[in-house]
C-alpha cells in the first residue's frame, strides 16, 4: 500500500476501571476499503469505534487519520463521521435539516447547503424528500438518510456501528447489498462493526475478528472462512462441527489424531506447530462433509464414518442434516447438498459420511 492509510491505530487500548475493554489493538485501513470489525457482544467493538470518533479517550496508544494523530482533536473537529446503531436522526428536524446539519456547523451559506443536501439525497436515491419529516420514512430510507448526513461532509472515514441491527430480517438482507453499493459509489473508507458474520462476510474488503478486546485475525472474508488462524475464528465465522482430540503422530503439516470418543482422524495443523501428545480442538465445516447411502462413495476420503439420520432441518437451499455417529453416539451436522438425492431421507435412516483431512483444522487446546 503506497498511500498512507486513511485510518491507523497503533497499540490502542481502553480500560474502564479494572476492566480492559480494548487491548493494544493495531491495524490500518487503506483508502477506499470497506473494513469490518466482527465480534461477539461485549468484545469491545463499540468502544474501539467510539475512540476513533473521539467520544472516548484511549488509555494508551495512538490513533492517526490520514497520518495525523487525533489524540487531542475533539470529536467535532475529526474528519470522521459516524452512523449510529439507531441512526440518531434528529427527530425535531426535517430530512433536509438533518442532512444539512453538519454543513450549518461549518457555516456554509444557506444556498450552498440546500444544493449540496439535494445532491447527496439524490445520490442515495432520495431526491425531493428534503422537506419531509424524518418519521415519514421507512427503516431502510432512514438508513440512507443517516449515511447521506455523513457523506455530505465528505469525511475521510465513515464509521458504522451495527447500523442494520434494528432492521427486520428481510430488510436487513436487502440493506447489506445496498450498503456495499453505496460504499463503492462514494468510494469512502468504511469502518463497519457488527456481530453478524454474514453481514461482515458479504460486504467487507477486510474483516477483523475481535474477541475480548484483541483482534484475533484480520483478512478477507475468504481468508477467515477457509483459513481461520485461531480456534475462536474457526468457531465464530461460519458453522463447524467441533471435536477434542489428541495428536498421535505429527507429520509435515498433517496430523493423526484420536478423539475423546476414541475415533481416529486425520487433520492438518492450522499453523500452531502441534506436537505429538498435544490436545487439540478440531473443526470441520458442515459443507465439507460428504454424504452417501453407500460406503464406497466416501471410503476414499481421509476420514469416514457411518451413522443414522437424527433429523433433517429443512430450510430450502440451506437445509441441514443432523446425524448421529454410530461410533461415538455424538451428533454431527452436515449441509444437505442442493441435489434431490437426499430429499427423502428421514429419521433413523442409515447413512455414510466422510471428509478430507485438509478440511479438518486443528488448533491447540488451552491446558485444562
Amino acid at each position, binding site marked *: 500500500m503506497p498511500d498512507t492509510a486513511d485510518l491507523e491505530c497503533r497499540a490502542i487500548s481502553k480500560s474502564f476501571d479494572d476492566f480492559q475493554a480494548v487491548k493494544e489493538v493495531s491495524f490500518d485501513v487503506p483508502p477506499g476499503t470497506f473494513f469490518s470489525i466482527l465480534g461477539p457482544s461485549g468484545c469491545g467493538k463499540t468502544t474501539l469505534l467510539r475512540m476513533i470518533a473521539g*467520544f472516548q479517550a484511549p488509555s494508551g496508544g495512538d490513533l492517526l487519520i490520514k497520518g495525523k494523530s487525533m489524540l487531542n482533536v*475533539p*470529536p467535532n473537529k475529526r474528519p470522521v463521521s*459516524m452512523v*449510529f446503531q439507531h441512526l440518531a436522526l*434528529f427527530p425535531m428536524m426535517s430530512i433536509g435539516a438533518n442532512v444539512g*446539519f453538519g454543513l450549518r456547523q461549518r457555516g456554509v451559506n444557506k444556498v450552498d447547503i440546500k444544493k449540496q443536501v439535494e445532491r447527496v439525497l439524490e445520490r442515495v436515491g432520495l431526491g425531493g424528500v428534503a422537506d419531509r419529516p424524518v418519521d415519514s420514512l421507512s427503516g431502510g430510507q432512514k438508513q440512507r438518510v443517516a449515511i447521506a*448526513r455523513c457523506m455530505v*461532509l465528505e469525511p475521510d472515514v465513515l464509521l458504522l456501528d451495527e447500523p442494520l441491527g434494528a432492521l427486520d430480517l428481510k430488510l436487513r438482507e436487502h440493506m447489506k447489498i445496498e450498503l456495499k453499493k453505496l460504499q463503492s459509489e462514494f468510494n469512502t473508507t468504511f469502518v463497519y462493526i457488527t456481530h453478524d458474520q454474514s453481514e461482515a462476510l458479504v460486504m467487507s474488503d477486510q474483516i477483523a475478528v475481535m474477541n475480548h478486546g484483541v483482534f484475533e485475525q484480520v483478512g478477507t472474508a475468504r481468508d477467515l472462512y477457509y483459513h481461520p488462524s485461531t480456534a475462536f475464528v474457526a468457531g465464530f465465522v461460519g458453522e463447524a462441527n467441533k471435536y477434542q482430540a489428541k495428536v498421535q503422530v505429527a507429520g509435515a503439516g498433517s496430523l493423526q489424531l484420536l478423539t475423546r470418543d476414541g475415533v481416529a482422524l486425520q487433520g492438518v495443523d492450522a499453523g500452531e506447530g502441534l506436537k505429538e501428545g498435544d490436545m487439540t480442538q478440531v473443526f470441520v465445516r458442515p459443507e465439507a462433509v460428504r454424504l452417501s447411502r453407500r460406503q464406497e462413495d466416501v471410503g476414499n476420503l481421509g476420514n469416514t464414518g457411518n451413522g443414522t439420520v437424527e433429523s433433517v432441518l429443512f430450510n430450502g437451499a440451506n437445509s441441514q442434516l443432523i446425524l448421529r455417529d454410530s461410533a461415538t453416539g455424538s451428533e454431527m451436522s452436515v449441509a444437505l447438498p442442493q441435489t434431490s438425492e437426499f430429499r427423502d431421507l428421514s429419521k433413523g435412516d442409515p447413512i455414510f459420511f466422510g471428509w478430507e483431512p485438509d478440511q479438518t483444522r486443528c488448533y491447540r487446546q488451552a491446558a485444562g
Partner: protein
Amino acid sequence: MITGIPQSSGFKWTYRAYVTLFFFYLALPLITVCVFAFNDSVFPSLPWDGFTWDWFFGTEAPRLGVFHERPILRSIGTSAFVAVWVSGLAVLVGTCNAFLFVRHDFAGKDFLYILMLLPLIIPGIILGISILVFSSSIANTLEEATGLWFDGLRPGLILVILGQFSFITTFATLVISARLQKFDTSLEEAALNLGATKWGAIRQVTLPFLLPAMIAAAVVAVLMSFENFNTTLMLVGSDAPLTVTMFDRLKQGSTPVLNAVSLLLIVVSAILGLASLLSRR
C-alpha cells in the same frame, strides 16, 4: 380495551356507571361555582333569583362585576406576575437539575435526589413558615448589623415567588427529567460528530427535544402558582395574589363576583391545559 378479557355486560355497565359518577363528582363543585356566577343575588347560594351578567360587568357598588373590581383585577395581575417568575425560574432550575440527575454521576447523588423530592411532601404551610422564619431572622440580623433595611427578605412578592418556587421546581424537575431520560444521547454525539460544539449540540438538538416538556412544566408551574394558597398565605405582604384576595373576600363579604372570577379562571386553565396537552405531542 383489553379486548381479550370477556366480562359480563352487567359488570361492564356498572363499571361505566361508576366512572361516569366519578367524573360527575369531579365536576360538581366547579359547575356549581360557575352556575352561581349568574345568580341575580348578592349571595352566592340558593335560592336562585334569576339570571344576570352583573357579576361580570356590573358597575354599581354592591353589584360590582369582576371587570370593574380594581382589587381583584390587581390581584390577578399580581398572580400573573408571580406565576411568570415562578414558572420561569422553576423551568430554568428544573432543566439544570434534569441534566444533573440524568447525565451525571457523583457522590451523594441519591441523597440529593431524595432531598430534591422532599418539597413534594412538606406541607405547604410548613414550607411557608420556615421560609418566613428564616428570612426574617436573616433580615433582623442584617438590619441590626448594618442599620439598613432588607425589605426583600420580608413578606412580599419576592418571598411569595421564592416560596412557590421552592416546591414547584420539584415538579418541573420531574417533568423535564422524565423527558430527558427518553432522550437518546447518541443524538448529541451525532451532533458533535457532525461538527457541532458541545453547547451547539445541546442548543440545536437537546433543548428542542426538551421543549415540549419545558412548556408542559411551565404550564403546570403557572397553574400551581395561580392556585397556591398555603405557602403564599404565610409569605404574602401588601400585594396579595388572587387566591389570598379571594380568601379574604370569602371571610369579609363575598358576592357572586368570586364565582365570576372562578369561572374565568376555569376557562383560562382549561385552555392552558389543552395547550400543554397539544404541545406534548
